[in-house]
Structures are given as C-alpha cells and as structure tokens.
C-alpha cells in the first residue's frame, strides 16, 4: 500500500515526539522536519534519520510544497495563525496541535468521521483529548446536563505557552466538552503539580446526567468501550478505578501514561496530543488515498 507524505512544522518536544511516532505508521510517510533552529535537538535527530530538514521555517517548505500533503503544526498558537493561511493557499491539509483553534475541533473517537474533508483541524487541548471521549461516552448512554473535568499534570510537562495563557486551556476545553462531548454545560479545571518524581497525567470527569435517562449499566459499558477505543491509539490511557455512580452523578478517574517516545512517560498530557495527531492524520490519509484509487 502506498503511503501519504507528511511533514512536521516545529522541532521542539512535541514535533520530535511526533517524528518518533510517525516512524511506526503504515500509512504515513514522514518526509520533512521544519524548524527554525538548526542546532535544535529535533532537527539534529531528523537529519541523522535522513529526513529532509528545513531550518528556515515555513517559507522553506513553501518552496518545496511537494514534500508533503499533510502538515502537523507543533509550533505556537500565534505562529499557527500565520502558517494556517500560507498552507491553505498551497492546498495542504493541516493538523494543528497548538491552541489556536482555527479549524474544526477534533476528538478522534467522537467526531473525526464528520471532518475528513476539512483542510485544517485542531486538537483542542490535552485535557480535552483525555476527557471529551468520556463525556461523549456517558452522553450517548444517558443525557449529560453538566460535565466538569479536572486535569492534573506534572509541572515539568507544562510548557511556557500553556503557562503564559492558562485561561486558553480552561476556555477551549470547556467549549469542547459542550460542542463535542455533548454536555449542555461544560467546565474545565487544570492543576499543575510539581511533585518529584513527576506524576502521571490524571483526569477526573464528573457528569450530572438527566435522571429520567439514567441507565447505570449502559453508562458503564459505554465508558469501558470508549476507554478501549482510546487505548487503540494511546496505549497508556486507562481508568484508575471503576466509574463511581452516585445518584445522577457519574465520576470517572483516568490516568495517561506516555509511550516514552521522545517525551518522558509522565507527560501523558503531551503524548495524548501527539498520538491523537497521528491517529487523525492516518484517518485523513486513508480517506485521501481511497479517493485517488
């Protein structure tokens, strides 16, 4: 089977982790790593591995657009606004890992199928990728009136961008809980924990369901099915305990251990983003390749 060519824009931690994950893909062929610092670890590793390395940023890629059909943007929200416009002009499909939220918000097991024709999609936030599938799973069994998520991540895994604009996390994630998760009202909280050794990413999902539609067995089954689905692309995603049901309140405790590709295992919050990005790109690639046959 032929593979679809992809490029990574941004040679930081996320971009480099993506590079390592893409090596395992049967559908995607990483050709190019684009950065702005030739001395960066990401670009150095890309060069060693024999990928095309562009160290002058997006403009270098625009000169050779044939290098990739799909571009992962792992830079920053601000840079993405600029990249999105330029890549759109070249007709490239863009998977945005920044919080820019220019394109449709995607959570792979929930709404990816509806967006396979889009040219720019956004992965919301790490907390969104970890918890929106669960909100959706509860909502498909019993209607969710209110969902609240608490994401706790190791301080070391929170980058400068996240820290400088932490409101972006709470606002974008709550929007995703409503729009994609299906909750009538959503709320998100993020906590940074500096403990050493660093803690794994933890997420707690609380949902208040409509009492009239409450179906305990269906909710638990739906959550378990969803966890298995997410595990198919994020192997370290798991329930910490069985979901707790108390009246119409459902509480789900999750933890995410990273695959330890480039990023340390505790940073499940970053791993779930890169893993989701690969998953989205693979589905896009299948869709595109099917059309060309």
């Amino acid at each position, binding site marked *: 089977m032929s593979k679809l060519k992809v490029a990574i824009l941004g040679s930081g931690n996320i971009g480099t982790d993506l590079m390592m994950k893409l090596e395992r893909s049967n559908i995607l062929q990483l050709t190019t790593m684009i950065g702005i610092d030739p001395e960066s670890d990401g670009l150095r590793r890309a060069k060693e591995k024999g990928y095309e390395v562009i160290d002058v940023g997006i403009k270098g890629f625009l000169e050779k657009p044939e290098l990739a059909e799909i571009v992962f943007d792992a830079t920053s929200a601000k840079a993405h606004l600029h990249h999105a416009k330029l890549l759109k002009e070249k007709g490239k499909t863009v998977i945005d890992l920044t919080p820019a939220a220019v394109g449709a918000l995607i959570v792979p097991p929930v709404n990816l199928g509806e967006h396979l024709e889009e040219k720019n999609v956004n992965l919301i936030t790490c907390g969104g990728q970890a918890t929106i599938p669960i909100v959706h799973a509860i909502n498909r069994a019993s209607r969710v009136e*209110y969902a*609240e998520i*608490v994401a*706790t991540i190791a*301080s070391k895994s929170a980058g*400068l961008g996240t*820290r*400088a*604009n*932490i*409101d972006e*996390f*709470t*606002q974008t994630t709550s929007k995703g809980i409503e729009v994609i998760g299906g909750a009538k009202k959503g*709320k998100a*909280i*993020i*906590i*940074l*924990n*500096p*403990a050493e050794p660093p803690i794994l990413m*933890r997420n*707690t999902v*609380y949902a*208040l369901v409509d009492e009239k539609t409450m179906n305990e067995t269906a909710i638990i089954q739906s959550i378990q099915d969803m966890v298995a689905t997410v595990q198919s692309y994020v192997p370290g995603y798991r329930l*910490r*305990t069985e979901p*707790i049901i108390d009246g119409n*309140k459902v*509480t789900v*405790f999750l933890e995410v251990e990273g695959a330890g590709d480039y990023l340390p295992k505790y940073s499940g919050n970053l791993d779930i983003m890169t893993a989701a990005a690969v998953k989205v790109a693979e589905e896009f690639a299948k869709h595109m390749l099917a059309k060309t046959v």
Partner: protein
Amino acid sequence: MTKKRNILITEVALRDGSHAIAHQYTVDQVANIAKALDEAHVPYIEVAHGDGLAGSSLQYGLSRTDEFKLIEAAVSVCEQTKIAVLLLPGIGTIKELKQAADLGAKMARIATHVTEADVSAQHIGLAKELGMEAVGFLMMSHMAPVEKLVEQAKLMESYGADVVYVVDSAGALLPYEVRERVRALKQYLGIEIGFHGHNNLSLAMANSLVAIEEGATRIDGSVRCLGAGAGNTQTEVLVAVLDRLGIETGIDLYKIMDLAEEIVAPMLPAPQEITRDSLVLGYAGVYSSFYLHAQRAAKKLGIDARDILIELGKRKVVGGQEDMIIDVAMEIKKKREAVTR
C-alpha cells in the same frame, strides 16, 4: 476619622470561610457581615467561592448563591471597606476577574501553588490594567524552600503585583519557618509582604506576629476563625493583640468582637475548633480545604480521615486536587480489605 494603619488586615471569612460552610452563603448573610465589617473599619473583605472566582464546581462544592451576587451585595453595603476577590489561574479566568471589577471589586488576589507563579502573569497584569490593587498569593508556602519562594515571589513582583503573600494553606508552617520566609522576601523584594495563616497547629496567631516582626504589613484574618480546616488567624483576637502591642490596625475592637459574636457565631453549624482531623492537616501539610471532603469520604467508606490526609501529604498533593481524596480513600479501603481477607 481613619487613623493611620500600621498593618492592613484583610478579612477572609466571606471567602476562606466559605469552605467551612460548604459554600452555602446567602446574599443576606454576606450583606450583614460585610456591613458590620465596614462599620468596624476593616480595610478589606475578600468575597468569592472558597476556591476563588469560578470555584463553584463538583470538584470543590457548588455555591448556593452565585458569587457575583455576593460580591455585588458586599460592595453595595460598604462605604469605606474595599472588596477583594481571589482567583486561582486554572480555575478562574480573566473573564471572571473583569466581571468582579465591573461590580466594584478593588483588589485582586491571584493565587498559585508556591512553585507555579508564572501562570499568574496574565491575571496580575489584567488586575493592574483594570486599576485594581494586585496581590500575588503563593499557596502551600511550606512546600518550597526559601530560595524557591523568593524566586517565585520575584516573578509576581515583575508581573506588577503590589503585594506578595506567604500563604500557609496547610497551616503547617512553624514560627521559625515563617520568620525565614518573610525575612527573605523583605530582603529581596521591593513590595509589601503579607501572611495568610491557618490555625491547624494552633500557630496562626504566633505566625502572624512573627510575620509582622519581620516586616509583613498585610495580614489575613477570619472572624471566629471562619476559614478552611481549623480556620485562619482569628481577626478580633488579632486586632486586640496588635492593639496591646501598639500596632495600629484602624479596626474598632468592640465592633469587630460584636460582629463575631452576634452575627458570625450564630451562623456557624459548629464552632471552629482544632479537631483531630484539622490538626492532621497541619501535621501532614495538606491543603486546609480538604478537611470536609476528607471527612465525607472517610465516613462513606468507613475509614479514618486522618489516614487519608496523611497519605495525601506523603504524595505531595497540591491545592485544588480534591479529586485525589476519594481516589486515595478508595485505595486505602481496598488495601484494608485485601489484608483482612
């Protein structure tokens, strides 16, 4: 009429005290208390959910009354006293801060874990833009060494904070630890320093006095100790003690005693005292607002709340991680069952 004040006291019963009454404040209660505090010449009153603006949640407890209605009520009855709000980045956002400022809040206290000050830049910056007094609030100050605290406080100063507080959220600091922290901050920062204590080890008053000796000029108190855990430094007592020391707070001693006795005390479900569980908060260094949550989880699962709190302390859980309480409680119960089987 207003005398020169040597120390500015912020009354926190309408924010920290919200934890002790499971966030059940009504507009009338807040208006009555705020009015009496204003008449007693308290300079600042903090009003918000216990976990700050937007804290109303399943994680921390839902507010009975929309906090903006409480802020509005407090502002409307105060002639002199300024209303302060608390905001924890990650929970509240600039949207709620703007809303509070629109309603007349004059002071924004931006709280982060002691090592995470850099998440507060945006909020401190906005508070200044809105013309508010901005206070950096370094929670769980016992969890970081002095040098780290200084580094983080300097960040808050660089974002524009007018004051930085040493916040003993767990009521775990010993007097000598307060002394070295406030002393270092006075040495390395150019702004005012504050201290927020909890009385879990019966040290809130002693620690506040040590902080003042080292140059702190902002002190938090709560009337009748109405705050999380065993409560805070008891405001009416602090006013009396400072008066004896010749330190001017500008607060009317009789009036603050009267409001504590006649308005606040009858409202409390139980007097604020140091119980075995609140003592353990201070002993294990655990966030004081975990108190009622841990007691509820313990009761539900038939285990000892102290065991939960000690375990949370060992895991270095930080403020806001209330979801860890039930998680840890379930683990303890499972282990017990495995042993007895």
